[in-house]
């Protein structure tokens, strides 16, 4: 039996087994799921080299599974994140119901994602894509009591629109290019925007929806924040990256095309969509009072950066996107784990209700701090390197200066919500009801700490990620991607020593930090969270005086027009109008037998009258 099939089988059997084990012992389910995912990744990393291929026939179609360096790169993310997330889940999910259901779907989702990256033909790609989608749907609605109708189904509808757009593209690729193999289709120019323009556009549509690009992002915030946090870790960390994976594939034709200038408009449009996604995601993240929701919007924004990077179509830009892909998975995974830990230990993630957890959960705070630094793109952590690459690509190689401003604006604004997340949950005075909160259990801390260490190391030695990323880029058609352990050479041969830069800035940062802390330490005094100066006004009783309330009110006022432009509302109206419209057609079935009989006769008469038009 083929080794790749064995991995899929391990995951499948694991999924069924966990589902069944739940009836006997719900404690064992988490461990079982973790062990199975670990086994699958061990088998994968030890047994399957890059370049592996496996061909077979199913349903009269030639299917092919295999791994290139490009898919290997994403497999790292999938297995890495999954194993950590499952380890984290063991304690996080403890005491919740329907664990078999949860872990079974979890492993199926991993199977789907793994299948997507190993698919080398479109049919398997679509099949695994759909498995991934419905398995994750089952997890999204896991928590969504009462709200299935709006929340979970919204995710599914958008996913289905995307998947069916892909399917349309796939069937036409088969017709026009007579192949279902991805590599062959690329070689024949299937993703070329010149011949059959709807094929790449439909594919891009499908992948962008999974990557939650504007204006299709509306499913993401609620889906991310409503799922159990241990799943959101891979939902946002790994699954949304499948969209990135696909966009990267489609764009190969742009890099490889004979005259890439012709596709400039595609890149511009996608770049702007990415930019707008980044801005909108960020400004919505600002006004959230729930930490989970904040992170969810932030994920949307981060995916925007990645799309911007991809859209540049230059080596540096793609490298930035790939780098951000990993680093986003790492720090956002860690942050969602932090949010989950807080939720588990303190019972809520509403930032208006809790604060000062630093005393109770110091390790969790440490992880949150490092991850937030990475998220904000500050040195010396990995996020900085990605941001640097992105700006460099935008400024020096794509000349799209307005987009630079947009991205820069959004990443500056990201500081605001990063600060809020950190401050809201961990800093400030303690609330009385969080006095007896305990540090997260060790199995939850370990994955968080591992992710934190990855974030730090990748900032210091970015080459660790450059190496596989460069290989991945070569696999999709770039040549001579030059990189060193801590530096990257751009188009003109300028070498940027990113590790050094990030270390230097980090050092300055630490010095300033120490200085300010020492300076300010003496002047601090303890006040309650709700004891704030009200500038002479007497607060009314119902006014919530927590700092977190209206935290960014001035900003919010300034950006009011942006907030009123709510995509969510637009989609909702569309849905409601459609249903009302459908209701009209439903009335055709009047319930009166005679009317039905009349329909029959009228239909007959119409056919007879127009018989020469219809039948010739």
């Amino acid at each position: 039996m083929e080794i790749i099939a064995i991995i899929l089988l391990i995951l499948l059997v694991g999924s069924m087994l966990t589902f069944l084990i739940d009836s006997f012992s719900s404690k064992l389910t988490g461990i079982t799921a973790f062990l199975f995912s670990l086994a699958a990744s061990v088998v994968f990393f030890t047994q399957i080299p890059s370049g592996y291929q496996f061909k077979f026939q199913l349903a009269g179609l030639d299917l092919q599974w295999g791994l290139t360096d490009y898919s290997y790169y994403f497999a790292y993310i999938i297995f890495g994140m999954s194993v950590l997330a499952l380890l984290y889940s063991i304690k996080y999910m403890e005491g919740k119901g329907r664990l078999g259901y949860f872990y079974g779907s979890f492993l199926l989702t991993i199977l789907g994602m793994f299948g997507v990256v190993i698919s080398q033909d479109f049919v398997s790609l679509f099949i695994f894509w759909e498995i991934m989608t419905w398995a994750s749907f089952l997890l999204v609605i896991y928590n969504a009591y009462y709200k299935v109708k709006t929340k979970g189904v919204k995710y599914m509808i958008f996913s289905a629109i995307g998947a069916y757009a892909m399917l349309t593209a796939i069937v036409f690729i088969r017709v026009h290019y007579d192949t279902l193999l991805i590599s062959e289709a690329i070689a024949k120019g299937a993703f070329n925007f010149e011949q059959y323009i709807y094929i790449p556009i439909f594919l891009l549509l499908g992948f962008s929806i999974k990557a939650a690009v504007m204006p299709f992002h509306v499913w993401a915030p609620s889906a991310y924040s409503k799922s159990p946090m241990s799943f959101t870790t891979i939902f946002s960390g790994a699954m949304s990256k499948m969209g990135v994976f696909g966009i990267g594939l489609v764009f190969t034709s742009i890099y490889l095309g004979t005259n890439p200038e012709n596709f400039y408009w595609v890149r511009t449009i996608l770049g702007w969509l990415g930019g707008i996604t980044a801005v909108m995601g960020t400004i919505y993240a600002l006004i959230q009072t729930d930490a989970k929701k904040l992170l969810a919007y932030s994920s949307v924004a981060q995916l925007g950066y990645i799309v911007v990077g991809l859209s540049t179509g230059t080596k540096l830009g793609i490298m930035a996107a790939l780098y951000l892909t990993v680093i986003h998975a790492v720090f956002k995974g860690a942050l969602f784990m932090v949010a989950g830990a807080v939720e588990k230990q303190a019972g809520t993630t509403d930032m208006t209700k809790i604060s000062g957890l630093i005393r109770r959960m110091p390790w969790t705070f440490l992880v949150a701090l490092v991850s937030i630094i990475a998220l904000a793109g500050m040195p010396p952590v990995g996020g900085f390197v990605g941001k640097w690459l992105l700006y460099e690509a935008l400024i020096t190689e794509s000349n799209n200066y307005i987009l630079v401003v947009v991205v820069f604006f959004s990443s500056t604004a990201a500081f605001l919500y990063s600060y809020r997340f950190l401050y809201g949950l961990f800093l400030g005075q303690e609330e009385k009801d969080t006095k007896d909160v305990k540090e997260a259990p060790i199995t939850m801390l370990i994955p968080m700490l591992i992710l934190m260490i990855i974030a730090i190391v990748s900032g210091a030695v970015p080459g660790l990620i450059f190496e596989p990323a460069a290989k991945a880029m070569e696999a999709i058609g770039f040549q001579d991607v030059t990189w060193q352990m801590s530096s990257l050479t751009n188009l003109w041969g300028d070498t940027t020593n990113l590790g050094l830069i990030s270390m230097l800035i980090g050092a300055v940062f630490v010095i300033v930090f120490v200085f300010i802390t020492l300076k300010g330490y003496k002047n601090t005094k303890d006040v309650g969270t709700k004891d704030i100066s009200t500038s002479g006004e007497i607060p009314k009783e119902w006014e919530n005086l927590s700092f977190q309330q209206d935290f960014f009110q001035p900003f919010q006022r300034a950006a009011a027009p942006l907030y009123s432009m709510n995509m969510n509302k637009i989609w909702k109206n569309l849905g409601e109008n459609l249903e009302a419209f459908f209701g009209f057609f439903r009335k055709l079935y009047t319930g009166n037998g005679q009317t039905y009989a009349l329909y029959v006769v009228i239909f007959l008469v119409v056919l007879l009258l127009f018989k020469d038009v219809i039948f010739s």
Partner: protein
Amino acid sequence: MMEFQALFEQYRDLITIAVYGTAIALIVIGLYAVLMKKHLVKIVIGLSIMDAGIHLLFVAIGYISGGTAPIFSPGNENAGARMVDPVPQALVLTAIVIGFAVTALALSLVIRLYKHHHTANIDQLNSLKW
């Protein structure tokens, strides 16, 4: 018998028109009853009339003027040349039986409906809709 034959030959076209006309008239009347009448029993009657019209049309088409009964008998071996087409008659017999069954079932349903709704107006029987 011969007189009848002669008489038939004389009004042949008229009779043909009359038979076909009756058949089509029956179908139209039946359709009218089914589509316009509100009483359930009248609708069932309309269905029956429509069926009757179609059956008449069948028989009329199979008829050959001056044809004999479609029976081969000793001394009448070459009857095939002038006999009425037997197939439509067989079909009509079957169709009549089926029509009978459908009508019986329909009437029993009408009784059931009347018991439940205390009305036989089809416009009031629309609790299942949309």
